[in-house]
């Protein structure tokens, strides 16, 4: 399974990548923001994205992906510091399948990724 990890924090990208590797996923693509990610979507089967990023934020990226014929069915997990109820509702309405609030544990990330995969 090919997975894209989108976050402007290189530390957070590496933490997420380490966890995915431990779950057995090896084909991981990294992007620094939504705009960068849009150029790396070929063959992607799962998206893990941050919200607050320069160039193109995560919510705009999600809306762009969901309006694209080619990519609209790819499941999206949002991993963000934005934890307000209205923010979470807005993200889900925009097409996010699962939501993780930073700071997060590896256990939570594993649980949410497994839940998506088993669907």
């Amino acid at each position: 399974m090919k997975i894209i990890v989108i976050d402007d924090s290189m530390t957070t990208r590496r933490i997420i990548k380490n966890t995915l590797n431990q779950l057995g996923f090896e084909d991981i693509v990294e992007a620094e923001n939504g705009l960068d990610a849009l150029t790396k979507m070929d063959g992607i089967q799962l998206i893990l994205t941050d919200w607050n990023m320069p160039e193109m934020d995560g919510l705009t990226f999600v809306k762009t992906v969901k309006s694209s014929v080619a990519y609209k069915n790819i499941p999206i997990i949002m991993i963000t510091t934005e934890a307000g109820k209205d923010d979470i509702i807005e993200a889900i309405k925009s097409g996010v399948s699962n939501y993780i609030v930073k700071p997060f544990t590896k256990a939570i990330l594993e649980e949410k990724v497994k839940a998506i995969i088993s669907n």
Partner: protein
Amino acid sequence: MNVEYINPFIASTINALSVMAAVNPVLGKPYLREDNTIRSDISGSIGIAGEVVGSVALNFPESLAMKITGNMLDDVVNEVNDYVRDTVGEIANMVAGGAKKTLLEKGFHLQIALPIVISGHNLNTMYPRDFPCVVVPFTIDGENFFLEIALDFPAK
């Protein structure tokens, strides 16, 4: 500045560092900053706008920033590299984001900006002079770091 407004930042600092880096920050006694005596090597700050205006910053000595980064990456970190600077910014982002949620529940609507990280040696930390700045000292394994909160809350 009301302690009711400071506590969300203290709580989110402890939460971010304990969850992400498995360290236990011990809270010291907060005080109002009145001079330029706060020194640090790496500072991560987040601008805040909306009904609450100002900034919040986390200021670390090199050794502590390397330790936190190493714990987060499950790796040995013995120089101040891009990962260390990035980590300080991302922790500041989590601190501001966590406090934002609590303040929202208290009725304050605010937005947080992207982190700005400055690194060097023994820097004099920056803060907006227009607002009162509360300094919150913490200790991890005998080393100090500082949370600085310089915010203007509307009268409610």
